[in-house]
């Protein structure tokens, strides 16, 4: 327990930084919302053309999908790639290495500090908004606390998968200079393959099935489908186990890459 205590200052720092960079977060928020609205209008037009359902989704399903995916993206957002990349370029990463804390945990707690703010200011209002939408759409309150809890539980795994995936990417800065292009590639890969852009079920089965097994689906698709109640209990259990599996694999991968990178660093003398 006292160990966790060592990381609390990082969480506080992350929270304060998030407040200080509020316009940055606002920019991110507007960008993401904008994207959601484009999706909303596109699908609205599409559903108007198909007469109610599209590959098993109703329009209401689609709206819930778009906005909950979006809200999830905020919850799992990590700055690890940028932080690590910037510190590597500046050389200030060594300052982090001489502190008696774990690199990954200190970064993670910094992220969590920011997540608290986005959870309160963005996620909760969006969730309430979606529930209200569902009320108007179906005429009854359909709030299911258990499902929301399961969603949050799965989203916690998503956070970890995304975090360690980001960390692996950030360490690439040891080898590359243009991390900017690389992070765009990562982002569009995550957006597409995680099923936060379109439900993975819309893809031809031959693509959808392998993609669902990849770590990306664990980042967003799983919690969103849980919230939407698209999983049976056994499917849910399987999906969460898969998430846990990817947390473990990516954790190991980031540790390995860092070990290699450290050796690379000493060769470079930087």
């Amino acid at each position, binding site marked *: 327990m006292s160990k966790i205590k060592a990381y609390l200052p990082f969480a506080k720092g992350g929270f304060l930084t998030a407040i200080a960079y509020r*316009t*940055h977060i*606002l*920019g*991110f928020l*507007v*960008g993401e919302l*904008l*994207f959601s*609205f*484009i999706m909303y*209008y*596109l699908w*609205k*037009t*599409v559903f108007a*053309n*198909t007469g109610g359902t*599209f*590959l098993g989704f109703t329009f209401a399903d689609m709206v819930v999908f778009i906005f909950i995916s979006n809200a999830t993206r905020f919850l799992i957002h990590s700055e690890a790639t940028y932080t690590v990349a910037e510190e590597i370029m500046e050389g200030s990463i060594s300052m982090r290495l001489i502190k008696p804390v774990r690199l990954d945990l200190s970064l993670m707690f910094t992220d969590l500090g920011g997540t608290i703010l986005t959870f309160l200011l963005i996620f909760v209002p969006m969730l309430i908004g979606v529930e209200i939408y569902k009320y108007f759409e179906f005429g009854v309150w359909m709030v299911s606390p258990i499902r929301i809890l399961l969603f949050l539980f799965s989203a916690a795994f998503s956070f970890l998968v995304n975090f360690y995936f980001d960390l692996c990417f950030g360490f690439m800065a040891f080898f*590359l*200079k*243009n*991390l*900017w*292009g*690389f992070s*765009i*590639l990562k982002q*569009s*890969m995550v*957006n*597409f393959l995680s099923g936060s*852009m*379109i439900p993975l079920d*819309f*893809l031809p089965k031959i693509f959808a099935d392998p993609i669902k097994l990849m770590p990306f689906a664990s980042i967003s698709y799983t919690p969103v489908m849980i919230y939407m109640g698209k999983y049976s209990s056994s499917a849910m259990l399987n999906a969460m186990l898969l998430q846990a599996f990817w947390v473990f694999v990516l954790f190991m991968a980031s540790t390995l890459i860092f070990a290699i990178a450290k050796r690379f660093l000493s060769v470079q003398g930087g």
Partner: protein
Amino acid sequence: MKHFLKLYATFIAQYFKRLLEYRIDFLTGAFSFLFDQVTSLVFIFIIFNQIPALSGYPFEAIVFIYGFSLIPKGIDHFLTDNLWKVAYFMVRNGSFDRYLTRPIHPLLHVIMETWQIDALGEFLVGMTLVLYSSSQGIITWMVSDILLLPLTMIMASLIYTSIKMMVSAIALWTKRSGSILQMVYSTNEFAKYPIAIYHRMIQFTITYVIPFAFTSYFPARYFMTRENPWGNIGGLFLLAVTFTSFGVYLWQIGLRAYESAGS
């Protein structure tokens, strides 16, 4: 003028030398933007696998508008990417001072200093889509298009550039305007699809406030239907010229207010 061209050539030569130094990074950059576009295309493709037309536009027309939007975006991204750096950190960390000690206008200096090869991803996808879709019988090309099409693309690029100029100029007062630029710039995403699908408010915004609809939807519609050239093309030219002048003006007064970093 001759001096400027020579100076520009020198800057770009430098850029290519840097590019060769970090080959892999630049390739990743261009590939990233390409990949980003391709995923969006897959998305459109999935939709049209299920429905024949969107708001009355067939698949080819949607692809044409989408591709059309990427060309000016790519041109601007290619030529004036440094404006992002002004908005995000050049003013804040004081590196902007350097431009003020040089005998060239800072705005020109900032823009001329570099290219952004990543933009090729957008530009090439845009060109491919426009060429493909326009060969599917949705457009009858006219001789005058040889002149009009490139000119339209230049004017549409100017809309992007002028918006970047205006918002980056804000940083000269506030030290940082990257987030605002990000917000304003990201509305260009709306321009990738026919604006008829959006709510009236959104249509109004991207036509009259942040006029990205003029970078794709309006001119693309003109080339497809030949309707309303004054509104579709004339509007674009008028806005491009007005916005660019205003962007330059904002820089001009921003430079006066510029407060440098620290003391």
